[in-house]
Structure formats: C-alpha cells, structure tokens
C-alpha cells in the first residue's frame, strides 16, 4: 500500500518535509511603501528603503501581518500574539541590506496541520511546524551581458510567507497533494496567488530515506522548485540517489542541492557550498510585534470559506460524494463555477456535467475554467432543458458539443436542430408499431425468453426517431406492446 523504493538491500521509506515560500498579496512591500506589484520596469518599484540606502528604516505593513494570520488560521495553526523580526545576515548581490529581515526565533504562526486526500481515497494529516514573514530578495540576471551580473530590486522587500511542514510526507504523491492543498488554501484566503510558474509560490524540499522503523537519516534540501510536478520528480530522483549511496556503503552529506530539470538530476549548489553562519539576531530597527487576540478573532470571523469547509458543504448541500466534492473544491474557480451551475438545480447532475463533459473539453483544449467555452449560465440552461424533459440526456450531449463549437445557447441549438424530445405517445406508438411489424422473428425470440432483445427494440425506436423520443415513454409503451 505505502510508497516504498526497492533497493538491493530491501525496501526504503522516503521522508519528505516541505518549505513553501508564498508571496503575500498586498499593495505595498513588507517594510516599505513601494509597490509589490509584479512585472514593472527594472528598479522602478524600489524605494530607498528597499535599496538599503544609509539611514533608511523599515516600517511594517499591517496588511502583510493580517495576511499571515489569515493563512495561519487556514492552516489550523496557533497564532503567536508576540512575534519578532530577526536579521539573517549574508552577502549577496540581490540582498541590498546585507541581511534579510525574517522571523527566526518567534514566528507569527506556530504549529498547525492540514488534511491531504490521496488517490486511494485515504486521508492523511500533515503537520505544519510554523509560518513566518520575511522579505524577498531582488533578482540577479546573469545573461544580460557576458561579463556582468545585473541586479533589479523590484522584488526586494516584497513580503513572503514561509510555511514549514513537519517531515510527515512519505511519497511524491503526498508531497504533491500537500502542495496542492497549501495552494488551494492560500488562494481561497486571497493571501497568495499560488502561481508557481511566476514564482509567487516556490518550494524547498527536504528529502531523506530510511529503512522502515529506523530514525531519520541525513536529509538534503532541494532549493527553489517551481512546479508541483518537478517537486514530485525531484523527490524520487533524490531518494534514489540516497539509496544508491547507502547501498554502496557511503554516507549522505547534509547539503543544499539544485534540481536540474533538463538532466533529471540533483546537484550541489556551488553558491551554498560553505555552510552559512547567518548570525540571526533581533532587528534593532523594529520592536516585537504584538497582536491582540480580539484582532485575530476578527480576522477569523471574516475569513473566506476554506476548501475543506466547502467540500463538507458541497457534500451536505448538494448530496455529492466526498471524492467528487474534493475534485470540485481543489480549485476555487471550479468550485465557484460549479455552484453557479448547481444553484436551484440537481447538484449531482451539475457535478457530473462539470467534472465529466466540461473537464474533458477543458483538458482536451488545454483551457482553465476561466477560459471555458461554455459559461456556467449556459451549462445551467442545458441542465434545465434536461430537467423539464425538453431534451433527453443523449441529445443533451449532442447539444453540449454544439455549444462548445458554436458558443450558442442550448435552447437555440435545440430549436435550430429540432432536437426537442418527443413525448407524444401517439407518435411513439406509431413508430413502435412499424418496428414490431418489421421484426416478427425477434418478437418470437423475445417472447421465448430472450429478454435482452428489449434493448434492441428500444434502440430501433430511438434510431427511427433520431434519438429525440423520451426514453421513459418508449420503455413503457414497448413493455405494454410486447407483453
């Protein structure tokens, strides 16, 4: 059942912990009044504070603190009413102060936990160690000229949340599920946009392996991985590297490594070769951060609905199975789309159409729910046509395909193509009579016990009526005629 890697000396368990760096959604930076907005011209979203000019001082952004608290609440974590900012000292071209302001000893958010769901339907708790606020660095660009590295400080000082997990994950699948869950939570809360491709969410992955029942062995940290798929690949590759070292009688060095996607390997980061001594100490430009419990309570009472709560509600309100509800809440936009479709309609039917037909189209065309060729309203109208017996389910699929192609509303398509369901018993009886007259031998076989032929008659009738007959009426009438 559980994920193990078979080595020459037996099965190995993989131990994974994740550090997620999530960029806080805010207008201004963590300690300055410069814009935190992404994508400006070089060195324009930079104040003299961000460029660490002499005598410049940090002043903490209230919203960034609130965003961290909201995220902490979303992680079911303890909010620390006293936290503190420390300096992490090191030299780098894109670190203007020569230190990063971070929270080392007293983070704003303490222990918490989240649930992840796995493919086999099982549920697992992953512990959260802490969440703290820190400054982002600027950007070094190495390929603008042959001889220079150039530095853009637009990102310098933007607020990041570092979310640290316990080493509770045991497979790439669990790590992937964890990251998706964290991403869903921050997106639901509006505290981070979760876009890993743009770098607003990045993961450092700690990987070690051990024989079942052993204590933890030495871990390696894989830095700055920017997609869930790569995280999963990197874990497997790194775990196999450890196993090979151990099985050849070697020892794993604790170090920071880089995942090279193109080569499918991890390697030591040269710039991190020397073990750093960051000399953390409390930032004397800032005082301890005190948050009132009443403020935390207020943020809690105004918190957006979290994915797990939404799933529970979908289950009870729309009667969805847990699995389906989970699929729908994985992304907030999908959940919202679904709710629009399901409102005052059959929830299960709405869910089936969204996760079935619609997802198939989106996957095939590589579109997000935002770019869906069919709006929630249009899909809702289609469901209405089924519900009021204007069309049957089979015709509905034809209408749906037309909608994808033309963008027309389902009612118009039904009109245009004359797909309205036939519920006139006289018309159906007439067709049944013709079919039965043409197949006396089949009737005989049916009557002698070949029950399966009932389907043949239904099929023939539907075919004759171009699928537009109401299947329930066809069934009823056929049964009467054949008895």
């Amino acid at each position: 059942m559980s994920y193990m890697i078979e080595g020459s000396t037996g099965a190995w368990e993989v131990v994974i912990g994740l550090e997620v760096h999530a960029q806080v959604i805010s207008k201004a930076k963590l300690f300055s009044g410069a814009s935190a907005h992404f994508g400006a011209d070089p060195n324009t979203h930079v104040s003299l504070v961000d460029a660490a000019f002499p005598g410049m001082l940090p002043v903490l952004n209230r919203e960034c603190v609130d965003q961290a608290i909201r995220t902490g609440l979303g992680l079911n974590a303890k909010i620390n009413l006293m936290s503190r900012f420390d300096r992490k000292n090191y030299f780098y071209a894109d670190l203007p102060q020569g230190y990063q302001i971070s929270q080392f000893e007293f983070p704003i958010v303490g222990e918490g936990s989240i649930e992840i769901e796995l493919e086999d339907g099982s549920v697992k708790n992953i512990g959260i160690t802490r969440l703290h606020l820190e400054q982002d660095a600027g950007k070094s660009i190495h390929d603008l000229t042959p001889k220079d590295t150039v530095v853009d400080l637009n990102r310098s000082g933007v607020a990041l949340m570092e979310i640290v997990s316990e080493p509770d994950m045991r497979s790439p699948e669990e790590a992937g599920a964890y990251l998706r869950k964290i991403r869903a939570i921050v997106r639901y809360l509006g505290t981070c946009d979760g876009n890993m491709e743009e770098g607003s969410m990045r993961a450092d992955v700690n990987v070690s392996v051990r024989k079942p029942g052993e204590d933890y062995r030495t871990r390696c940290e894989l830095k700055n991985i920017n997609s869930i798929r790569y995280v999963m690949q990197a874990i497997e590759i790194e775990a196999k590297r450890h196993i090979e070292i151990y099985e050849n009688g070697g020892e794993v060095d604790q170090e920071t490594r880089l995942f090279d996607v193109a080569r499918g390997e991890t390697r030591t980061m040269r710039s991190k070769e020397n073990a750093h001594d960051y000399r953390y100490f409390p930032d004397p430009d800032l005082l301890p951060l005190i948050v009132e419990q009443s403020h935390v309570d207020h943020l809690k009472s105004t918190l957006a609905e979290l994915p797990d709560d939404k799933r529970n509600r979908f289950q009870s309100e729309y009667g969805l199975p847990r699995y389906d509800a989970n699929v729908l809440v994985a992304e907030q936009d999908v959940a919202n789309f679904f709710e629009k479709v399901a409102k005052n309609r059959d929830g299960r039917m709405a869910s089936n159409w969204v996760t079935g037909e619609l997802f198939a189209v989106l996957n095939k065309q590589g579109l997000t729910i935002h770019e869906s060729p069919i709006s929630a309203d249009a899909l809702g109208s289609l469901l209405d046509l089924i519900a009021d017996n204007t069309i049957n389910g089979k015709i509905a699929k034809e209408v749906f395909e037309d909608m994808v192609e033309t963008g027309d509303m389902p009612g118009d398509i039904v009109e245009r193509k004359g797909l309205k369901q036939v519920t006139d018993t006289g018309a159906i009886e007439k067709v049944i009579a013709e079919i039965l007259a043409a197949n006396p031998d089949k009737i005989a076989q049916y009557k002698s016990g070949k029950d399966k032929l009932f389907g043949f008659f239904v099929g023939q009738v539907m075919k004759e009526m171009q699928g537009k007959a109401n299947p329930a009426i066809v069934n009823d009438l056929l049964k009467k005629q054949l008895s």
Partner: protein
Amino acid sequence: MGAELTDKILDKKIVQRVAKLSSLAVKEDELAIYAADLGGIINWMEQLNGVDITDVQPMVGTEIAQLRLREDVVTDGDCKEDVLSNAPERIADFYAVPKVVE
C-alpha cells in the same frame, strides 16, 4: 558556559573565518594584530560571566514603545534615478557586479 571561555585567545584562524563572514579583506600581517586586539576585548568582556542572569529576559529595543504598523498603501518607489544615481557601475537601469556563477 562561562568558564570555558575564560582566557580565550583568538587565533588567526578564527579572525580569518570572521573576516570572511564579514566580507572584509584582511591582510596576513593584520590578522595577528586583530587577533590580539579582539582577544583582549573578549577577555575583558568575560566579566559578564560573573553576572547572575537567571530568569532575566533579554532586552529587545529599549522597551519604551510598541511596534507601530503602516497601512498597506503605495507611497514610495518610482524613483529609479534616485535609486541608481550613486551606483558605482550601472548597466541600463540595473546595478552591475562581476558575473556570479551559480
């Protein structure tokens, strides 16, 4: 912790390591001088080992005020020329340094 630090003499190796952490070029002949100076200062500081600090909370800031917070409003930035005006080396609108190899 105290006793083991008493009479610690800083050797040149420690000064070298600290100089590296501080990004300070220190010449070979200066190492010994700094080692002696710093060793002297550190020995003098050993007097603090005699102070009873049981149950004393460290002082952070001067404890006169609480941290104030700023509203989330863009009030600064868009001052590229101020930011770059003192740069020893500038390429286009970037600061430039010798190529860093990752």
